[in-house]
């Protein structure tokens, strides 16, 4: 029982991490809160659903299309985000809230309000470990998110553009003085953010129902994990994802599944009230 809860929390938490990565990266580099994040994710999910359902494309091959599509959308959005004036963080929130409403209604128009699910039966099959009740789907989630984090880590620590991205996250002015093209870093961040959205979207469509109004849920998750880990601490996000999923499982187990929705919100409020710079920050606020 307990091992099942932990395994499922690890898998769900890994998925949460995938959901949050793009948001965290875009915020870290450009100081733009992209509240349309959840809607972009759901849009990528719908893209995969549409390819899988109407074109009978194998699920694996929906990923490249979803990734390219959401990178394109993110790059287009970046052009608009770049026009915002100070205070950047607040204006980006208001602006992206508007974009979220736009995308939500566009999806309602194109895909109707029905609940959709990408059904992949093999993902629910047990992976055949007797001791540990793990399904292929859970292994996929764990593998994908750890792989994505590792890839991002390699990129951020071992390539020049990655190091430049980290420098921009740490200090925009100093990075610019050192000759880093900060504007280009913003474009790069949106491109990578789009990549992760395109990766997480189809998965969202196969473990969670797709419907136009479900975006804000994913956005709230991404905001919570980003604030939890603190700006630019991408490694903290996976820990945050696991902890959140564990907290949710415990809530479902002991209090009731209907209280689960309150956990990310309560966590975010608590974090903002006590440690708005992330759980790893040493300053008191």
């Amino acid at each position, binding site marked *: 029982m307990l091992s099942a809860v932990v395994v499922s929390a690890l898998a769900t938490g890994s998925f949460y991490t995938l959901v949050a990565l793009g948001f965290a990266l875009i915020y870290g580099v450009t100081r733009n809160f992209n509240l349309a994040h959840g809607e972009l994710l759901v849009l990528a999910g719908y893209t995969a659903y549409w390819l899988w359902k109407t074109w009978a494309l194998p699920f694996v091959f929906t990923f490249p299309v979803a990734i390219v599509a959401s990178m394109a959308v993110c790059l287009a959005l970046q052009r608009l985000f770049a026009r915002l004036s100070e205070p950047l963080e607040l204006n980006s929130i*208001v602006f992206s809230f508007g974009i*979220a409403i736009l995308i939500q209604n566009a999806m309602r128009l194109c895909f109707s309000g029905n609940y959709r699910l990408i059904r992949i039966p093999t993902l629910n099959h047990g992976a055949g470990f007797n001791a540990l009740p793990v399904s292929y789907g859970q292994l996929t989630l764990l593998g994908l998110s750890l792989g994505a984090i590792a890839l991002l880590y390699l990129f951020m620590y071992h390539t020049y553009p990655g190091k430049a991205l980290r420098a921009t996250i740490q200090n925009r002015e100093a990075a610019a003085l050192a000759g880093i093209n900060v504007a280009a870093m913003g474009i790069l961040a949106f491109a990578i953010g789009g990549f992760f959205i395109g990766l997480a979207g189809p998965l969202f469509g196969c473990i969670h129902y797709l419907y136009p109004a479900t975006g804000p849920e994913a956005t709230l998750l991404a*905001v919570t994990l980003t604030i939890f880990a603190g700006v630019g601490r991408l490694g903290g996000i996976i820990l945050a994802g696991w902890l959140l999923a564990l907290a949710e499982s415990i809530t479902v187990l002991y209090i009731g599944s209907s209280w689960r929705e309150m956990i990310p919100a309560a966590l975010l409020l608590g974090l903002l009230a006590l440690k708005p710079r992330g759980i790893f920050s040493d300053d008191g606020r």
Partner: protein
Amino acid sequence: MTAAERPVPYSTAPRERRTAARGGMLLTFVALAALPVVSGQNGYVLQVYTQTLLLASLALAWNVLGISGAVSLGHAAFFGTGAYVSALLSTIQDLSVWITIPLAGVFAAALGMLAGLICMRLRGAYFALATLAFVEIPRVITTNWDNVTQGSLGLVGLPGLPVLHWGDWRLDMAASSTAAYYFVFAYAVMVLCIVGIIQRSSFGLAFQALREEETAALSIGIPVSALRLLALSASAFFAGICGACYAHLVRYIEPGLVYGLYFSAIPMVLAICGGRFTILGPALAALVIYPLDQFVFHPLLPAGHEFLYGLALVLTVLFFPKGFWGYFGRTS
């Protein structure tokens, strides 16, 4: 007293434009007052405008906070709480709607105070994110407290708006949509007047000071934290009353609706499009955008007509950051 001595925020607009604006205001007021007579028996038009005025009041309520510089993405928390408090008190406790509507405001204000205490140290973007999360709390509690609130099923068959007595004269606002319209109209005008009075008092100047430069405001002795709390609970109070009016107008509420994204988004979109540092802007935006949505876009695109709010918000932020009324009205 000359214009320069007046202790009120000045308009930067030239005098002729201000005169034109005042004329426009008067005309709008008269047009709204005459609407039930003009629209005759067309119930739909009246219904849309009743809702318009309710949303205008909600946007004005939002802007009580907005004018002090904060952006809330979670006013549905107060709207929904107001709706549920009034609905429950009037059905379970059998209280008169005349009493439950103000009580709904009081409960919402208390919730606003709580939100304000939690978000005490947060500014700007972080405050906005906190309000986004805060709205989940009353929603989940209402959904789960199902032996009282019926949970996600919602409450049906709520009492309508009250009956007005004046000697022999009797006006049943639940039965007459014209009377309901004037009830909401009166509330909208009342909120507008209160907002106007607050903003032109020394409170208004203090809100303006803490919006522009908080440290400086604090250093000249403005009680910044207390004012923030006051602005949030006053805003929640009026939003809660809007929610209560909604509950008794529509006579059906459910958590997903009254705590939903719609009632968080609408007041923010209207206030920002109208001009969030203006007194009239939010109400004017409601008068333009909601009927446009209902009469033009809803018939055209029944599924996605609400894209209009997103589009209006995006265009405002990109091209008219001061909002529509901010360009030629009185900015405070």
